[in-house]
């Protein structure tokens, strides 16, 4: 009797999983590795609010994804911090991929001026949508004013690249 109940339970779970897989496969969109229009919703590092890209209407956005133990991230953060003060027409956002407390320490260490967000627990899906399919860091993306992918760079950025990207992506 108990075994029969267990059989039924397992069958139900299996059926649910298979049905989910089928439906997901049938209706899932084609992969969009560089989305036409980007959107996400992430919590701020201090855990007080969610931030959406739609919060920055008609503004180009520079998104820098970083990790606390990533040497190029450490190296480029002061530059990004300074550039965020120069390119005031572009919204700079940082996304920390480590645990919140470590990321907060990192952001405080560099006195970062622009908003810092907390990546999902498994950030690989977000990074894939941003175009960083392998999840290597640092990764920087610039979205145009319509929040379409405009420029991206894997690895440390420099002032020239930021200048070119901002010019290209914020022109319209």
């Amino acid at each position, binding site marked *: 009797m108990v075994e029969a109940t267990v059989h039924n339970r397992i069958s139900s779970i299996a059926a649910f999983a298979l049905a989910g897989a089928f439906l997901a496969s049938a209706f899932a969109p084609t992969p969009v590795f560089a989305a036409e229009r980007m959107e996400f919703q992430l*919590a701020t590092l201090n855990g007080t609010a969610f931030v959406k890209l739609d919060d920055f209407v008609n503004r180009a956005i520079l998104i820098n994804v970083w990790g606390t133990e990533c040497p190029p991230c450490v190296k480029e953060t002061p530059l990004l911090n300074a550039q965020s003060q120069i390119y005031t027409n572009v919204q700079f956002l940082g996304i920390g991929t480590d645990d919140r407390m470590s990321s907060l320490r990192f952001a405080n260490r560099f006195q970062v001026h622009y908003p810092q967000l907390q990546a999902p627990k498994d950030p690989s899906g977000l990074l894939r949508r941003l175009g960083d399919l*392998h999840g290597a860091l640092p990764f920087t993306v610039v979205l145009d004013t319509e929040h379409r992918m405009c420029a991206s760079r894997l690895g440390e950025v420099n002032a020239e690249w930021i200048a070119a990207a901002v010019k290209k992506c914020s022109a319209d």
Partner: protein
Amino acid sequence: MPRLSASVAVGAMIVASSAYIPSFAATPALSVPLQSEVKDSLGHPWKHRDVRLLSSDGKEVSTTTTDANGIARFQHVAPGKYVIEIPGVNGALTRKDVLVTSQGNPTVSLVTDVKPEKVASTPKSALEQITVTGVRATEPGALRGDIVMTESVDSQEMAKTGATSLIDALTHRPGIDIQVECSVCNVRSITLDNLPGRFTTLTLDGVPIFGPASNAYGLDMLGVNGLERIDVSRGAGSSLTTPESLAGTITLVTKVPTKDTAEIDADAGNFGYRHETAYGAKVFDWGAVSVNATNQSHYSVDGVGYGISQFTGYHRELAGISLFANDLDGFRIKTRYDHIEEKRGGGPLGNDYSAILANTTGNPFNWSAGPNGSPYSNTWIEPSTGQPVEPPYDGGEAGIAQIIFTVRNQFVSTADRDFDDGTKLHLAFGYAHHEQSSWYGMDSDYWDNQHQIYLDANLQRLLGGALFTVGANYKSDQLSSQSISTTTGTPYYGILRYDVDAYQYRTPGIYVQGYEAFFDERLEINASVREDDNNEFGSVTTPRLNALWHHSDTLSSRLAIGTGYRLPTSFFEQDHGILSAFSVDRSGAKPERSKNASYSLNYADDRFAVTTSLNYTRITDMALFVNNAANNFVLEPAQQPFTVANADIDGTWQATPSDAFTVGLEGYHYQFNPYDAYNAALFSRPEYRVHLSYDHDSGPWDFNIRSTFTGPQNLAKWYDYADNPIYNLNGTPKPDWSPTFWVVDMHTSYQFNQWVSGELGITNLTNYQQAKHDSYLFQDPYGNLNVTYIWGPNIGRAAVAGVKVKF
């Protein structure tokens, strides 16, 4: 007309990037270097200029800068069609189509109208800031590696839950469980998909140097200090280099330091718990050095008043050093050495082991305590007669003590080198020496020495669009032992014997794996086969196949089919009685074999992630250790297969910026012969489990609570009551099914400042203990006592508080 030229050299290469690859990152996919030599019309190197690599549809893939010789390098480019673009002045662009393949060295010329004299030089400082020249991130590559990871626990998560050992880090997860196999010696193992714990293979940085002797008491000795993460690979199809992992593989990944660090962590709790760890790392130009040390102790615990522990006391010490070299003759080296010592004792309470072993007469225990206890404190009721067993217990503390001292030295080193033609060489070496001195009160005294050596070498190269891995490894596993029977009436009572429990296996193996992506890289296929040749059991072939389908950026499916085999090794821990037996016949032994099929579906967006999986595993020739009619032990294969089918689903929802909820469900269906389960010493497993977790992470506070509801366990079937009925000490039968129960753990931490945090943890919050419902003690119909009857938690509520200092 000014003219620029570019020569493009293409070859297979596995990623050797200076980019940081975090733990969550997928293994970089196959890629090739792309090198361009850029010159102006006068033939001079075009220095310090940006060069862009665009996909065929015009999207930027990577940007790099030419060096002082006019060389621009794109380190990792997947085969395909690209455009190299050189921005000039006033918006002028020079472009050239490039076909990157894995074969040959095509040369591409670029022609531009840009006058070289109009090109301004880029400051050198800009070049120096570029550390990564680009990875074409169009291939997820999750199946490219030797081991396909299905779950991972990183150092952050370990810290959040207060985990101090491998065991702690893996609790409350669907498909993964900790199985206690001995109530007085606390042997524990990690079960994957509820398969027996001995079918889980443990590796350190991918090197399998844990065997049956070290696993018996070794898992508790593995701290998480200095680890970057723990990778879990469920299924026999998940590993190329560990074919013995019938259920899956657990890989401990050593943290590679990236900055100077010092950490001290000290905790204390009830039941005499103390835990101190230290970790330090220093980064140099050539690499890094890290050291770690752990000191941990716990009293033995009796929750019901028998005077016999349900939780084993211990004191363990660990010291380790790791060396990391970035470029030693082209090799990236990762080396680790650990020394671990542990003393543990269960049965009578306390840790004065000499006094316990010297106490050999009288009755220090209360056999009437606990549920269904005996009416008498000094003896119990024999079920077959209904009368008290005579004479009463007179074995003293030593009679039921299990005391084990272990010393372990382990060394692991891996070396990786990327060659200019794109070939990658991987070398691995591991050595472990495990010594055990043990006293099993009612059975025997036992000493063993286990030596394990592991060597592995493989090459990876891109051929015809597919990435091939070809390798060979050698594994030596040798166990020798001495033992003295302490069971009166056995043939060798009091006589020192050598190698009653011993084996010597030497297993060279070769393997090949192919990986390729199809349909615009939406489908990845990984197929492999390996052939091992063991000195005792001959050759064994184990194929596997993995397929990964990316439905979208947020949804993917994985199908895995694989086989594995495991050689029969030591069985002293399965039945200490073998050490007292007249003989142990291994002549009929066979390797245990598994066939496994798994399907999983994963969805993850910014706030919601869910994974569901279906798994089927069939074990044939499962090793049985049968005590035959002549009271001798025979190692023989099971006549019927042991199968486990399970489904699980695990979802996490980020409800608010600071609150996340996780729900997990897992259900199982088992098919096995109870005779096999009894003689293979399989422990009871539940029909289903439910997991609920809540995380709050805000301001300086971090709070989490994790709970698991364990469904009923068919004790009558798992323990083969039909052939081996067992009874309580009052003579009543043990229950056929275990009750259901919750286990709830919570942990909170507070960050006082940049360096100091405090933590408080409570495990088993509801204080559910099996011993309060159903005794670990049991007897056969004739009054013979045993101590390992397990289906629930063996220790009650425990609180731990501590402080962590991190610089």
